[in-house]
């Protein structure tokens, strides 16, 4: 066996083709492009999951991301499992509706996943939003985990960002980024019977390695006549 000195070993480690796993992971991450929306940094070409209960701000934040991309002229898709998408809210968030493809799935989970598959196959979409909120857990449990890995593989190397919003975590380890939303409080303005919703304050946490630490978010309310 050949004996190497300390210095030689350090030099060879520097030249080594075989890198440490953590190093490779970092390197892989840095070749991908990021999307910065507000103080949130999202990885393109991967799956991002937004989970949280009702009124946790998932939809508002997703629309904010959509707004940024559609204003840049990117074509995005909304796969609306429950037909609950509100274009008026999207417009209030600054989403350019003419750059948006809206797919209403009528509550059929399988249709929504197939539609997502087709959209990702088409390539060139800036963002695909798969909204599976407000669906009974029993149905969501039937989605095989392999679907999410399949999506992740399809997106690899592309510029498409897949955002999955759900009441609880579905994508689990197949997600590149996973954010958890929690309602802090709703702020009302006005007094007595004349009150208006002013803003929703939410806490944003992550369970995955993050690029920029997520933090507290405030979501303003806007009425149509304002």
């Amino acid at each position: 066996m050949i004996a190497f000195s300390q210095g030689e070993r350090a030099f060879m480690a520097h030249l080594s083709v075989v890198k440490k796993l953590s190093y490779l992971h970092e390197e892989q991450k840095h070749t991908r492009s990021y999307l910065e929306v507000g103080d949130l940094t999202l990885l393109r070409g991967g799956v991002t999951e937004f989970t949280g209960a009702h009124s946790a701000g998932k939809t508002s934040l997703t629309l904010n991301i959509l707004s940024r991309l559609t204003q840049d002229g990117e074509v995005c898709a909304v796969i609306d499992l429950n037909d609950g998408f509100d274009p008026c809210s999207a417009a209030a968030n600054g989403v350019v509706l003419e750059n948006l493809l809206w797919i209403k799935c009528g509550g059929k989970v399988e249709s929504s996943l197939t539609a997502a598959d087709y959209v990702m196959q088409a390539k060139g979409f800036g963002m695909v939003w798969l909204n599976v909120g407000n669906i009974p857990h029993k149905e969501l449990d039937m989605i095989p985990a392999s679907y999410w890995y399949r999506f992740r593989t399809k997106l690899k190397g592309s510029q498409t960002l897949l955002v999955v919003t759900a009441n609880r975590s579905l994508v689990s380890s197949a997600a590149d980024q996973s954010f958890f939303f929690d309602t802090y409080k709703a702020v009302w303005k006005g007094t007595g019977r004349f009150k208006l919703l002013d803003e929703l304050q939410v806490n944003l946490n992550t369970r995955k390695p993050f690029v920029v630490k997520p933090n507290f978010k405030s979501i303003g309310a806007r009425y149509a006549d304002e």
Partner: protein
Amino acid sequence: MRMNKLYACINRVRSAECGMRSASESEPPAVAGGLTSSGDKDGSIAQLQPPATAGGSDRSLVQIANQFSHRVEAIDGGVLFDVSGMHNRIGSPSQIAGKISEELRKLDIEANVAVASNAQTAILYARSKAGVTVVEDKVHKRLPLETLGIDQDTLGVFHTLGLENSADLKNVPEAELIARYGPEFRKVVDLINQNGVHVLTPNLKENHVSWNYDLDFPVDDFERLIFILGHGLGKILEETGYFGFSSEQIDIALKLDDKTTAEYSIKLSFPTMDKAFWMKLINLRIGNNSPPCEIVSIRLVCHFARQRAIARGLFSATRPEPESLLLTVDKIKNIVGAANVGVPVLVDQRLPEAFALDADKLPAGREQKEPSESRPVLALTYFHPPLPADVSIFKGRLMYLKTQYFAGKVTEYGGTWKESSQWWTRRLWERMEWDVELEDRRLYRLAMNNSEWYVTGIYD
């Protein structure tokens, strides 16, 4: 004779016009042989409604010209077309002229033909010489002076001087003629010297080509016709490309065994010549709505459109290719229904859901000129259908909300807002809405219609 440029002109003989068969009203003959020959026994490409021609030329002449060239100009009384390069296919200019004459004879058209290296010379000889004329370079043929466009006074002077034809005029020094009759006379001199300046300008307005195929026996399954259809599609796209166009509309007419016709029209928002794409689209559209009866013949019509010009900025955002986007949307429509895929549009009315889905539109991918960085705005997500609710009211205040899925004490609420401004219906201001917050910090939109309560959506 080998010429770089070669033009042919057909000029119909006026006196024979009345007795001639009118080809314009009959079924257009197949363009067999020539440049666009199909070689099929049954399938043939025909140009439909060719030209509303300028200058009184007719369809039959244009069809003959199209067999030899795609650069055809309709002129007064005939057609002028470019036959450069035809020596590889047909032979010498005499043989080309002979072939044109043969085609005229087939259609029983009495016309003069001239082939020359100069467009204006070809026109001149076709108009002034009967039969077939091949004008070779530097070889001058005698022409009556009346055909050269000389004004009557000058013609009178020439006749007095004993000049009777173009050969006589050619013997007079050019400089002397121009000095005497002005610089305008240069045109006449150029015409005699075969230096005319007429530039062939294609002015025919073909707008589509078609392809027909009669099946030997009726076929009930459309999928079995895919190969035949693919063959026809290839032909009409090739023909369209030959004219220098692209296409954004293809019509398919399937004649059925019960004497009816199933018609399909596939329109795109962009021109494309991608055969595989068209095939997939035809397959999807007809597969979705297949004919009810056996098919006996197929007809494809390809409409011309300008070729797609792609000029995008170096830093512009990526977006799906139009072909890919359209196919994807069609595939998804097959799964979720045609009315459920499209672009959202806002409706300018005070309605509970003031928006619609435009299923005929595709995302444009248009860049916003002044993008705005904004903080998130609270969004609503609808429940479809709305959740029926029980609401407890105490002293005019909302106290408790209960639905099938959730219940809780109302801690805060804002409202009432009245919805629906449709004064022409009976639903005028019938609906009232509130924003409510329950004790678990969830925010809902509550509505009352005809004394019934619903939760219509959730703020998220």
